[in-house]
């Protein structure tokens, strides 16, 4: 998987499609495949497509301990987040108009919340602890009598911390509040048992777990039943919650990806842990490097490091052709500091930059070694060039220096 350009360590942005998944998808796309519209009940082509769709639904449900009837297909996690948050808020608007989320959520959650604010809802944005975790007591304190929904992601896409969704969900349910979890980064990588978890809505993505882009799912609890107002109407597909022709090959791909992720989770996890150790070990000797987020309660496949006194853009340029991220892919069109890292509020030095390394099933040790060597060399080179690093070496704290502004 490394015959592409450079070394790819941006699995949290998107993963390569597993060849077995691709094969299952391509099999749907040939003339003798399953090209019918799954909503066409009047003929064999439609029924065969529907059968494939339902098999995939079972595969997705099985991975997360859900009933297949609790899985709604969407175009991706962004749509799932929108449907869960806006759909529940709209449906239960007479119950209350307050929602709670966390400052470090994905844009799909935060922007959905902002839209609800424009519609007159109130939203509380919790600050995480410096390690990225949300304190269940802080959540409890934020709940109000009119709170209808709490949305907290399982694994953060930038720093990889794993929230204690069992504890957070328990707080929600004690107060009769719906709990939505964005599991785009965790599904297929960590065990999830919705049968046992106090979660009402959960968003999934296929392309973060070796499946195709453009397909996702939303888990909607049946017992007790959670209701949503559809965001996309027309045709009444997916029990009226999400209309639109179901893209059979995409859904088949997601089902295959989730089934594989379940079957290979132990192996994938062990592999990611070993790579993580190797990566962190590679930077152990380099001064001024910090790991962002909780060091243990995190997904092994995401490592976010800050490098003091190195500027971000020149670092990214220098590490080419290593494909890493300087922030969430959705926001990285600008090099403003990541809002996730800012929300952690670590006592950061004045100047630093961060890289997110994310890796997985197809990453080799040699890829990690390449990344470590490339990043170390660039950081060292840029520090040798940096007047700030020079000050630090002379015992001057650039943060206390009186900078003339002009």
């Amino acid at each position: 998987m490394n015959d592409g350009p450079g070394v790819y360590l941006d699995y949290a942005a998107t993963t390569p499609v597993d060849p077995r998944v691709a094969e299952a998808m391509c099999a749907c796309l040939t003339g003798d495949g399953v090209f019918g519209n799954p909503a066409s009940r009047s003929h064999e082509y439609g029924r065969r497509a529907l059968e494939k769709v339902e098999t995939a639904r079972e595969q997705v449900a099985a991975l997360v301990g859900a009933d297949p009837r609790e899985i709604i297909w969407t175009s991706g996690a962004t749509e799932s987040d929108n449907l869960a948050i806006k759909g529940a808020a709209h449906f239960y608007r007479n119950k209350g108009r307050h929602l709670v989320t966390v400052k470090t959520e994905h844009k799909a959650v935060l922007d959905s919340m902002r839209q609800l604010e424009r519609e007159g809802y109130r939203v509380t944005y919790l600050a995480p602890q410096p390690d990225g975790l949300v304190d269940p007591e802080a959540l409890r304190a934020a709940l109000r009598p009119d709170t209808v929904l709490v949305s907290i992601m399982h694994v953060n896409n930038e720093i990889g911390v794993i929230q204690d969704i069992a504890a957070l969900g328990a707080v929600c349910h004690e107060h009769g509040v719906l709990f939505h979890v964005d599991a785009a980064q965790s599904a297929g990588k960590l065990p999830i048992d919705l049968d046992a978890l106090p979660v009402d809505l959960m968003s999934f993505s296929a392309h973060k777990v070796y499946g195709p882009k453009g397909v996702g799912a939303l888990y909607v609890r049946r017992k007790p039943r959670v209701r949503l107002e559809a965001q996309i109407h027309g045709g009444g597909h997916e029990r009226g919650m999400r209309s639109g022709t179901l893209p059979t090959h995409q859904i088949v791909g997601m089902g295959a990806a989730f089934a594989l992720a379940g079957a290979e989770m132990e192996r994938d996890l062990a592999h990611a842990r070993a790579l993580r150790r190797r990566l962190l070990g590679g930077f152990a000797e380099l001064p001024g490097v910090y790991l962002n987020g909780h060091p243990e309660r995190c997904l092994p496949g995401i490592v976010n490091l800050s490098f003091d006194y190195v500027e971000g853009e020149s670092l990214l340029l220098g590490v080419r052709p290593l494909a890493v991220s300087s922030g969430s892919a959705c926001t990285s069109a600008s090099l403003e500091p990541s809002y996730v890292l800012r929300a952690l509020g670590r006592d950061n030095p004045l100047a630093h930059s961060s890289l997110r390394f994310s890796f997985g099933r197809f990453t080799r040790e040699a890829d990690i070694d390449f990344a470590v060597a490339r990043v170390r060399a660039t950081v060292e080179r840029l520090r040798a060039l940096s007047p700030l690093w020079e000050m630090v070496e002379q015992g001057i704290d650039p943060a206390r220096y009186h900078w003339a502004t002009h």
Partner: protein
Amino acid sequence: MIDFELYSPAVLEHYERPRNVGALDPEAPGVGTGLVGSPQAGDVVKLQIRVDAEDRIVETRFKTYGCAAAIAAGSWLSERIEGLTLDEAEALDSREIAEALALPAVKMHCSVLVEDALRAAVADCRRRRAGA
């Protein structure tokens, strides 16, 4: 700026192989130091010059904390001013830097910053000489 394709080969070349990186003893005779910008603003440039008895620049050093354009601009200028007198160096304009490196519009401030560093270094040099 994120699209590295916007950078000219000249910027990339100076970024990869910056000239005159390092430091001169700021207290040494004939040395002038300019340190401009701020970490908050995202770019810091330190430019140092050493002049001979005829006020001619005989040695330069620079360091940059900042983007590739700021590094390249510092590097390019450190070469450009070698052999110039202080008066000649002061007459240099940031536009010459921007043109030589074909800086994209969003990076024009980098050329201004290194020009400021040069002016500060020249002023420091003159001040120290007058004081000496």
